[in-house]
């Protein structure tokens, strides 16, 4: 069927058009669905709310563990999540709240958890250690300081 001089045969032309139409249909169908599926990636996570944890007067230079509750929304579930933090005041009066979650594998760290090192946070799982300000001590498993 190829005519002399023309590079594209009628059949090829039809096949290209067909692929185009098919591509249009597939794209129209699939794009809303893909958007629907990848929503969790696109969704911006809002900034965390501030929750009242304890009164200023109670904060000492010694880190204390405080538990607090926070309204959390997990898709269609809404519940109160119990969280905790280590809170203390530095000598200069700055208030520091540290997350108790070890940056190594997510265990709970405790201040002075190792009785021989009373001024450090200690993670019992893999013997990870942090300074009082949350900096990880080199040579122990954690690779990053505790989250503030």
């Amino acid at each position, binding site marked *: 069927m190829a005519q002399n001089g023309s590079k594209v045969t009628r059949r090829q032309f039809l096949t290209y058009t067909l692929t185009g139409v098919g591509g249009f249909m597939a794209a129209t*169908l*699939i794009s*809303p*669905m893909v*958007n*629907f*599926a990848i*929503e969790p990636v*696109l969704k911006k996570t809002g900034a965390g709310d501030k929750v009242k944890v304890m009164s200023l007067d109670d904060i000492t230079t010694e880190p204390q563990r405080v538990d607090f509750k926070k309204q959390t929304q997990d*898709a*269609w*579930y809404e519940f109160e999540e119990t969280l905790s933090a280590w809170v203390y005041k530095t000598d200069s009066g700055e208030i520091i709240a540290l997350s108790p979650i070890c940056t190594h594998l997510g265990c709970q760290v405790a201040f002075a958890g190792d009785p021989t090192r009373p001024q450090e946070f200690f993670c019992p799982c893999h013997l990870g250690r942090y300074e009082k300000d949350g900096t990880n001590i080199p040579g122990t498993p954690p690779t990053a300081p505790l989250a503030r």
Partner: protein
Amino acid sequence: MLQKIYDWVDERVDITPLWRDIADHEVPEHVNPAHHFSAFVYCFGGLTFFTIVIQILSGMFLTMYYVPDIINAHASVYYLQNEIAHGQIVRGMHHWGASVAIVMLFLHTLRVFFTGSYKKPRELNWVVGVLLFFVVLALGLTGYLLPWDMKALFATKVTLQIAESVPVIGGIAKTLLAGGEIVGASTLARFFAIHVFFLPAALFGLLGAHFLMIRKQGVSGPL
């Protein structure tokens, strides 16, 4: 590059005849709307299949958020429709697509009937087609319950009462469908399983047979 990959596969599994057979089979003039506009009635079968493809795709995506549980089903449907990007469109495709599928199927059945296309040698394909119709109706029935809203619950109660009125097996059928004495948690789980696994499996099998027979027998001749 593509050609080389194709040749490599074809040399080993000989795929050319498989698709050339489908690509090259001739479509007669009398079903081609380009030649006779009235041949558009032959489009309904294809459109039914297209709608079913839409149903399968949108259904697959809906199950990413939906949970078949009496406490969370409604909340998850509300969430996916209102909180998720394009949730309204995806659920809309599935919801409205169900109605469109029934309409298309109805028109397709009528076309086959009025052109007498179910006659020898195509009896078997007609039977498979009617079974497909039942499967699609059953999909609509089971899908109606899944959002677990008021109309879902009460319509299903009526359906089960109708099932119960069947003599001898009615009581058993009702308990089997409801998964217990009342329309509740186990009914929802059951309907979900039937809607998402059992009926689609039957649908795929029957559709395969339907298409295979069309390929074997060809389209019925012009009137």
